[in-house]
């Protein structure tokens, strides 16, 4: 019988880890809400319910410490504690943090974090009458701690009525005594010879080690004699003797009829009225949750992979179909084949979209963490900030969502600590004293955009420039030439921080360079727009999904590459001789605009034959600017199923993946973010030509023709 439960243990724990994240989130949400609406009973109840659920779940998953802590907190969260709202809010936040810490520790089976902060708050909340109680207790004579049973008290009363003296003797056992159990027997024997023992604690025969012995005795001897009998050297350290009547005062009356039911009972029930029916959106929410299906993301990935294979299969079929069509153009079967192909393509499309949707979750899941982050950061920095959220129902792949959580949090903390000014500064600048931070998410083409904008002081380009010069990131001549935007973008360089001092808040060893790096890894980008004095806007762009893209296939030096079609603004034809050189850049004049070019292959020899060579320039929208990408030939437009490449296969970030075409050829998918990045950083040291040159480190997998 044990077996199945043990096996389930792990699954149960995993589920616990997963579900508690939601619970911790609502704990944070409610604490924030309580801070806004002090003393709101419904909110306190909700917090209590959440802690209660955590308690039960932790117990069920076998995490005793967590369950016990939650239990203590639940008890402290009574409606009576409303009087100190700030303390209650603090308890909510501290509890969420501590629980989180404990859960992480459980996950890695590490050492549990200290709970002193929470315990301290719980004590503060529950102090008052109870603490006083405890103090009273300790000041009372030791003898009254013991509860004699009704029968023992009855015996005492009746013997006293007979004229006997009834005494409560407390013998403290010497801590050095080697055999406390034997000590008990010695004392009992010594007393039994001169008095009648009515009761004993611990009860005679109980096999427990104690520090003291309590005896209720009736005797006609003097107290002194009894005490001297008990004082056995090296065994008993101290003996107290009290008249039974005195101890009685503090004991419940024996006449049980008078024992009024304790009032705590009613309160306990009243503190728990059935929750009133909730607001409408809560009902909706619960409905949505009720039909939720928890599926291991690996299973979805499997399905997704299979769909990918199907799409490859589709292009294979299409190719065969085309070949068939050209060979037997009159065959009526050709049309039927084409019909079937079209039908299959449509269903496949739907299938792909549905599978993608499974992985999508609303950005809300990410955004809801931010109220707490903003509150804490603002408090620590002494700023006043309100947070506005919009576009929470925008969908995004769960994996991407999780991946951008940290970068986004960093940007937000950054915006509060560096962007938004202190209330005094703001008032001086004629702005409202409370700063505004806006998180917005929306879809654009095949991308998800997340914007973080603040109405703070903006990025001071001059300051950035000076700093960059000082750090040697740029040369003086660079500084001369760089545009405002280019200078501002320097903040994304590794190790760059414009803050005068590193603060605890945003200076966590993570710079904006890390943010950019993460975004690049996700095939996304980060942009910065700033308006000195008026605010800053960070814009994160992410591909909606990683798995399948519409791509433009082209050749560079006879190798096949692809880029996402949605990044291509237009395709221009040119000859080598149309290209000009400005400084270290190759540029192309395109309808009056000067387009910086990226040449990935090797530079052509400068002979007349080559200057007439026709090339294509892909005009790419990237990072808010246009770039030209020189390619030798265009191949086709295809739907590509991206296969991730592991580090052993390919050791560069310039390629984000590979795909297999219908005819079995392999195509490499270019990571534009990294390519553009490489170009802009290295252009100053000379042309980075030949980035994708045949002889460079990048070796494409063997191409089967």
């Amino acid at each position, binding site marked *: 019988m044990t077996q199945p439960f043990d096996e389930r243990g792990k699954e149960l724990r995993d589920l616990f880890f997963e579900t508690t994240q939601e619970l911790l989130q609502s704990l944070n949400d409610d604490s924030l809400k309580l801070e806004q609406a002090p003393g709101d009973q419904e909110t306190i109840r909700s917090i209590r319910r959440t802690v209660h659920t955590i308690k039960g779940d932790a117990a*069920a998953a076998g995490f005793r410490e967590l*369950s016990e802590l939650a239990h203590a907190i639940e008890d402290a969260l009574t409606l009576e504690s409303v009087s100190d709202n700030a303390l209650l809010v603090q308890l909510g936040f501290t509890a969420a943090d501590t629980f989180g810490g404990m859960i992480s520790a459980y996950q890695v089976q590490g050492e549990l974090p200290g709970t002193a902060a929470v315990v301290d708050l719980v004590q503060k909340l529950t102090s008052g009458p109870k603490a006083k109680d405890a103090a009273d207790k300790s000041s009372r004579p030791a003898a009254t701690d013991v509860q004699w049973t*009704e*029968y023992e008290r009855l*015996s005492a009363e009746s013997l006293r009525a007979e004229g006997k003296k009834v005494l409560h003797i407390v013998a403290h056992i010497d801590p050095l005594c080697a055999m406390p159990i034997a000590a008990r027997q010695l004392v009992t024997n010594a007393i039994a010879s001169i008095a009648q023992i009515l009761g004993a604690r611990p009860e005679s025969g109980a096999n427990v080690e104690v520090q003291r012995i309590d005896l209720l005795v009736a005797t006609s001897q003097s107290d002194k004699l009894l005490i001297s009998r008990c004082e056995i050297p090296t065994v008993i350290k101290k003996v107290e003797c009290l008249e039974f009547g005195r101890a009685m005062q503090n004991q419940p009356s024996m006449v049980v009829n008078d024992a009024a039911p304790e009032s705590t009972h009613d309160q306990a029930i009243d503190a728990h009225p059935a*929750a009133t*029916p909730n607001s409408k959106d809560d009902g909706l929410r619960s409905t949505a949750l*009720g039909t939720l299906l928890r599926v291991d993301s690996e299973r979805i990935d499997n399905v997704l992979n299979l769909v990918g294979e199907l799409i490859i299969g589709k292009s294979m079929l299409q190719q065969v179909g085309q070949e068939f069509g050209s060979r037997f153009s009159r065959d009526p079967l050709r049309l039927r084949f084409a019909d079937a192909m079209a039908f299959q393509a449509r269903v496949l499309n739907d299938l792909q979209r549905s599978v993608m949707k499974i992985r999508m979750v609303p950005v809300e899941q990410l955004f809801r963490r931010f109220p707490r982050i903003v509150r804490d950061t603002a408090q620590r920095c002494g700023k006043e900030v309100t947070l506005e959220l919009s576009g929470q129902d925008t969908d995004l792949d769960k994996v991407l969502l999780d991946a951008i959580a940290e970068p986004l949090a960093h940007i937000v903390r950054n915006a509060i600590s560096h962007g938004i000014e202190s209330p005094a500064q703001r008032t001086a600048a004629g702005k409202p004293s409370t700063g505004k931070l806006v998180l917005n998410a929306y879809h654009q083409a095949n991308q998800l955009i997340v914007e973080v904008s603040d109405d703070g002081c903006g990025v001071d380009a001059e300051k950035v420039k000076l700093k960059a010069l000082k750090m040697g990131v740029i040369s003086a001549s660079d500084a001369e030439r760089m545009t405002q935007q280019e200078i501002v973008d320097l903040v994304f360089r590794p190790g760059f921080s414009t803050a005068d001092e590193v603060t605890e808040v945003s200076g966590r060893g993570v710079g904006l360079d890390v943010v950019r790096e993460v975004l690049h890894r996700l095939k996304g980008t980060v942009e910065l727009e700033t308006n000195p004095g008026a605010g800053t806007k960070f814009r994160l762009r992410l591909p909606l999904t990683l798995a399948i893209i519409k791509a433009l296939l082209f050749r560079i030096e006879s190798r096949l590459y692809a880029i996402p079609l949605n990044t291509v603004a237009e395709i221009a034809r040119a000859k080598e001789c149309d290209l000009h050189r400005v400084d270290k850049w190759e540029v192309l004049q395109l309808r009056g605009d000067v387009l910086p070019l990226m040449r990935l292959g090797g530079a052509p020899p400068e002979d007349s034959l080559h200057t007439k060579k026709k090339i294509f320039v892909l005009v790419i929208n990237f990072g808010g600017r246009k770039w030209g990408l020189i390619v030798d030939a265009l191949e086709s437009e295809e739907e590509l199923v991206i296969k991730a490449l592991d580090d052993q296969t390919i050791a560069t970030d310039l390629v984000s993946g590979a795909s297999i075409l219908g005819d079995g050829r392999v195509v490499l998918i270019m990571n534009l973010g990294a390519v553009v990045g490489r170009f802009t950083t290295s252009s100053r040291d000379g042309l980075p030509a030949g980035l994708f040159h045949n002889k460079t480190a990048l070796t494409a997998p063997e191409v089967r023709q």
Partner: protein
Amino acid sequence: MNAKPVRVLVVDDSALMRKLIPQILATDNSIEVVGTAIDGNFGLKKIEELKPQVVTLDLEMPGLGGLDTLKEIVRRHRVPVIVVSSHSTSGASVTLKALSLGAFDFVAKPNDVSSRMQEIARELISKIKAAAQSRGIQIYSSADFPTPVAHLKNKGVPPQQPSRIVAIGISTGGPQSLQLMLSQMPGDFPGSIVVVQHMPDGFTDMFARRLDECCALNVKEAQSGDLLLAGRVLICPGNKHLKVKRLPLGDVAILSDDPLVNGHRPSVDVLFKSVAEEFGQRAIGVLMTGMGEDGAQGLGLMKTSGAMTIAQGEQSCVVFGMPKVAIERGFAQRVVELDAMAATLQAQCGRGGAQVARAAGKN
């Protein structure tokens, strides 16, 4: 066993419990979890949709809370409800309230699981089966309960020796049945009542207090050394066995940590056996609603030692298990339905407490 599995709906706001409870129930193939619901509103909807035979209900939920949900289920659907309750003072209080509102029974959520998991699993499974077999919900309207009777308490009267000792063993359906029965008894009832109600620790204290509030009798959770007095009801605490002992100055209750008997602690058999030994024909044994057969054998011992033995009748039993076994084995001298139980005990113990007490004292 029935070929068709018992259809169960799990209502709990904890995702973990919505997973764990069906897992536990899946170990028994005569039970089928037909659905889960995250709160009361949703639970009620699913009851209509899925028509479960038994509902397990968490009491602490957002939205429509546990008690309100229970009221609705009892009023509209009449599906037996097993409350899955937490181990805390407030949890106990709400749970007992749920029982008085018509919940079939309850299972205490584990507070330190792994070790007790199987025990809880077994308990939950057997309670679900019992609930499925019960004849729906026993509902007592408030008219069945005399109004609370603090003023009727036998105040100021010195405690008296009881005329007879009434030992009651009861399980599923017990809280409601005991409340109904004890509230019908007068404050000057001359007998002393000792009760073993199958209930985990942490609940019995609250249970005793609730009973004390609505009864003229004095009800108290038993402690070792408590006196058996006329008009007093001692409820055995959870996780202890209750025995009785005659001592020179009076009769007392003794609690012990002896091992489980019949899978129970407290066990009715332990109480009945000790009552039979100590009080013989001065005792009355009453075996009431509940599943299993705890107490049947003890009732037999009581009968042998000359005590009066009573089993609750099938009509009024929420689960006709323990009394059924006792009746089948011929251990019950009388079979009494719940509504007649209070009167029967009064007739047996006598009303004029003092005289009977003197008469009984000669025993």
